[in-house]
């Protein structure tokens, strides 16, 4: 158990010391995961809404596939991106392997099904009145869909926090396509793996602490999106 105390202490010292290498690694982690989250959101929220609202053949199958891809193993995502971006792959020309761009692409693959699937569920759970009201007030389908998305904010923010959790914690994909190159593609999770492999458990724990702290801060940021739009806490209360 000493190791755990040692790790907590070391983590605290790490944070206080602002070791430049750690700062760099942390910033890269944030950059990769937040970029991937944004891309996943830009595609996933509209697509999830379409899957929830639009009637077309294969809608249900597509939804089920989306849910299934929530279970895409990071290593597999990494491998697929690897095969596409590799010099001998179809997009080899762009020389993206072992760059943060490749890591972002792989993480988008992981984050997209989560954002899309959870958005679809949040949207489907809305009462019919949302559409009815928007439509009777003259909204086009697109405008009505926005109204529905707006009402689904709580669920969509849950989708974003969940996806962020998955991405910031994920190591399989970034390890595979990033390569854990020191100073270039090393992020917090790959550092943790490296430390455990080298038997430095307390360092691994310390970096883990930093990661959780970062996750906490980004979560607060995402949740503040919600507070900005809901003036007071609107939730069911029991007496």
């Amino acid at each position, binding site marked *: 158990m000493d190791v755990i105390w040692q790790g907590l202490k070391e983590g605290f010292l790490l944070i206080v010391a602002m070791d430049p290498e750690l700062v760099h690694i942390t910033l890269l982690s944030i950059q990769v995961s937040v970029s991937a989250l944004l891309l996943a959101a830009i595609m996933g929220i509209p697509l999830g809404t379409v899957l929830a609202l639009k009637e077309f053949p294969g809608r249900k199958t597509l939804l089920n596939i989306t849910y299934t891809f929530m279970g895409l193993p990071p290593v597999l995502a990494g491998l697929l991106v690897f095969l596409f971006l590799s010099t001998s792959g179809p997009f080899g020309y762009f020389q993206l392997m072992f760059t943060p761009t490749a890591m972002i692409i792989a993480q988008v693959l992981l984050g997209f099904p989560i954002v899309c699937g959870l958005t679809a569920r949040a949207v489907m759970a809305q*009462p019919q009145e949302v559409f*009815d*009201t928007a439509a009777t*007030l003259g909204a086009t*389908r697109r405008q009505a869909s926005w109204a529905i998305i707006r009402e689904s904010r709580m669920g969509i923010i849950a989708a974003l926090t969940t996806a962020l959790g998955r991405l910031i914690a994920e190591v399989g994909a970034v390890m595979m396509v990033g390569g854990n190159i020191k100073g270039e593609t090393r992020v917090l999770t790959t550092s943790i793996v490296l430390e455990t492999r080298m038997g430095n458990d307390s360092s691994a724990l310390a970096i883990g602490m930093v990661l959780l702290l970062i996750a906490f801060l980004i979560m607060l940021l995402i949740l503040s999106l919600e507070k900005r739009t*809901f003036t007071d806490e609107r939730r069911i209360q029991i007496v």
Partner: protein
Amino acid sequence: MNAEFKLFNISKSYGQREVLNIDNLEIGGGRIYCILGPNGAGKTTLFRIMSLLTLNDTGKMHILGEEVTWQKSQVVRLRRQMAMVTQTSFMFEGSVYYNVAYGLRVRKTAAAEEKRIVNESLELLGMMDFINQQARNLSGGERQKVAIARALAVKPRVLFLDEPTSNIDPASALDIEHYIQYINKEMGTTIIMVTHNLFQARRLSEEIFFMWEGRIIEKGETQKLFDNAQDKRTRSFIKGEIVF
């Protein structure tokens, strides 16, 4: 031939049950029309189909001079000329202002104009004090008033009112009735309303459609229908008048 609504053979079923079956319905426009009938007769369903909220299973409609093809652009064009106060007065999450402004925003009304109209509409319903309140925290009657203000704000050609004063106190209801008459007379707005308040129907409407189990079984000028209904069921329903 310039009827605002013409419905032929319109039907709607849920599962096995046919809840609407309209052989032929013509609503000329320009007047105040009342749809009467017992609970579950299909009044709300008819409203939903006429305002293009629900697809009919069979039949054809002409609405505001166009044959309904359910083409996207047509649906929006027609919907923008109509507004409805639904039976539940659903409020969007947000302030009263946001709710009333919604219909103007989707029409891309200029900000100043939007503000002016929202204030005007709320003033009219006596709800100015609530302008910045969360709409979902309003009382039942207040909510209904905001729903009316919201529909009025878009200045529709046709206004559907589904039991618009059911939760509103008598004095306010009277004000609202007066306002309904005003916009009908002064602005030529066609008003089609459902109410269970037969006094209200009598006071306001010029024409009545009486529904029973999904069908329109009687229609006519209000005075005539109340004085001399042909159908036994209509007569018995109207006797319910004494309930109020």
